[in-house]
């Protein structure tokens, strides 16, 4: 049975495994994949704030990743700013963009919110693609070097992995604190009962907007790390497929859980890398997974599998209990 002590042991084991990873796998290729997973996990965590805890389904979350990455590379490699000031400008401006986008998107809720975030995100993609004199167009922007904060040599894969892992830990800690805070609790209130929250005197719009900006901030952090990792950014970082992949990470891991998106990010990044090694049809698979999840596992991949196993056990024991609450399909529109 699961006791608190057992859970602690599990957490410690997981943490030890994450920390020991560069010693367990010596190949640089796998350490780099682990770094990719960690960066994707930060982005997925921030999107989960909106989807899981706020009930706001955004299809434009790549905006913060891409804009932050573009700004970081443009500022440091093309506009002559230093690493620190470039990073601060990237995160600050992207958060400011989240303020504007949050204001616009939250003029609607539910499906309208989804449409506006999608449209805004694709317009940004169009800008990155078409404004070639600034963004390099389809060729993207490159020329960035990884910084050397506190004398750390981030060009070394293992050190870079620890660097991004630190930010993942920070993100998890901040987001866990946020969820337990008054604001985070009232956000979950607005997700479940917006009208009651309004009637109780809460400023639903402000709660949702602040959470949106907070999520945008962490998206910007992920974008900065993305820029450090690839030292290159192309319009693909802003494309709808990137937003959809991030959404898949959140859904796959189970929405509204703290660690779900991390697991989802690992699943999606590994799957994408494995699949891309054999076939070039990642997009078809991505689409098929979306269709399959919605039709067969509306609770999300991990909770869905858990429910299936549970059901299987029930069949074996002849015991009937209904379980599983549909998380993504629960009607919040």
């Amino acid at each position: 049975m699961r006791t608190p002590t057992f859970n602690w042991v599990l957490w410690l084991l997981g943490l030890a495994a994450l920390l020991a990873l560069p010693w367990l796998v010596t190949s640089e290729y796998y350490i780099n994949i682990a770094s990719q997973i960690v960066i994707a996990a930060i982005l997925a965590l921030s999107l989960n704030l909106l989807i899981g805890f706020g009930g706001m389904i955004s299809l434009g979350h790549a905006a913060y990743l891409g804009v932050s990455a573009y700004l970081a590379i443009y500022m440091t490699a093309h506009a002559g700013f230093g690493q620190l000031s470039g990073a601060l400008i990237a995160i600050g401006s992207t958060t400011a963009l989240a303020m504007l986008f949050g204001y616009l998107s939250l003029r609607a809720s539910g499906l309208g919110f989804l449409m506006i975030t999608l449209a805004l995100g694709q317009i940004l993609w169009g800008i990155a693609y078409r404004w070639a004199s600034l963004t390099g167009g389809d060729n993207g922007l490159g020329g960035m070097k990884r910084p050397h904060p506190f004398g750390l040599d981030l060009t070394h894969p293992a050190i870079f992995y620890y660097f991004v892992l630190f930010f993942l830990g920070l993100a998890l800690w901040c987001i866990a604190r946020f969820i337990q805070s008054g604001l985070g609790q009232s956000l979950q209130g607005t997700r479940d009962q917006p009208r009651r929250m309004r009637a109780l005197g809460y400023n639903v719009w402000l709660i949702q907007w602040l959470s949106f900006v907070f999520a945008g901030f962490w998206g910007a952090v992920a974008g900065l790390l993305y820029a450090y990792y690839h030292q290159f950014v192309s319009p693909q970082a802003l494309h709808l497929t990137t937003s959809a992949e991030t959404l898949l990470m959140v859904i796959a891991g189970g929405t509204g859980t703290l660690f779900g998106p991390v697991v989802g990010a690992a699943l999606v990044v590994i799957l994408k890398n494995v699949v891309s090694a054999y076939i070039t049809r990642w997009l078809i698979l991505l689409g098929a997974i979306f269709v399959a999840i919605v039709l067969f596992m509306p609770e999300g991949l991990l909770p869905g599998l858990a429910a299936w196993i549970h059901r299987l056990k029930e069949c074996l024991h002849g015991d009937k209990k209904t379980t599983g609450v549909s998380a993504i399909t629960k009607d919040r529109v």
Partner: protein
Amino acid sequence: MNFWIIQGLNGLAFGSLLFILASGFSLIFGLMRIVNLSHGAYFMLGAYVGLSAIEAGANFWVAILLGGIAICVLGTLIERFVLRRLNGQPLAQVLVTLGIAFIIADACVWIWTGDPRPVPMPAELTGAFRVAQLAFPIYRLFVIGVAFALAAALWFLLERSRLGAMIRAGVDDLAMARAMGIRTSLLFSAVFCLGSALAGAGGVLAGPILSVYPGLDTDMLPLALVVVILGGVGSLLGAFVGSLIIGFIYSYGQALFPDLAYVILFLPMVLVLTLRPTGLFGRQAI
């Protein structure tokens, strides 16, 4: 002066294509509350089907018909066998249409390769129409004419026919329409079928102007979304006016500030969402 007239006509032609796409999208969203994110993919697939029909020897008009019918059949199947299973779960429906859009887009690259392919223009509409020193492609005038005729036909269908009255009733209050004995299930299929057919035929019609290329779907879909956000949900007039606004902005923007054409698209969205979140002609917030 000539510049403004020519670009205005170009904007009108692009707005016309957008209207053909966005009217179906808006009707589907207004009536069924389905954000059909496959709509851009339907448009692109329709264009590819039309292209293949022409390359197989069919003439342009048959190609338009085939593109429309193929996508209409596809859309109806998806509506009947996928979306209907998810009745009452709008978010699940959105995710499914997004997944289907990815599948269609990638399948198109698979079948028709990644190169942009222009759809040949019908011989009878090539050439330019000349007035004074102005020359304007006849085909674009034809597209503008088609969109205006379509707008009139849709207006007649919605405002003057029995089917239209049922659709309007469904848009305004679905539960009440159902209670009054309207068979909304059939209505849904009819509207989805119509919207899909318009997207498919519109894709073929757009082929000679825009060409067909991978990414046409994600180029057009957000524009259709912006049109609906501007014009208002389920409003035919809104879709019409919104399409023309975006068509003009896009056309003048690309001619005057080619780098910033997409930046300018933010402006109408910011204005409308700030001042009138229901859209210009919508009665309910999106």
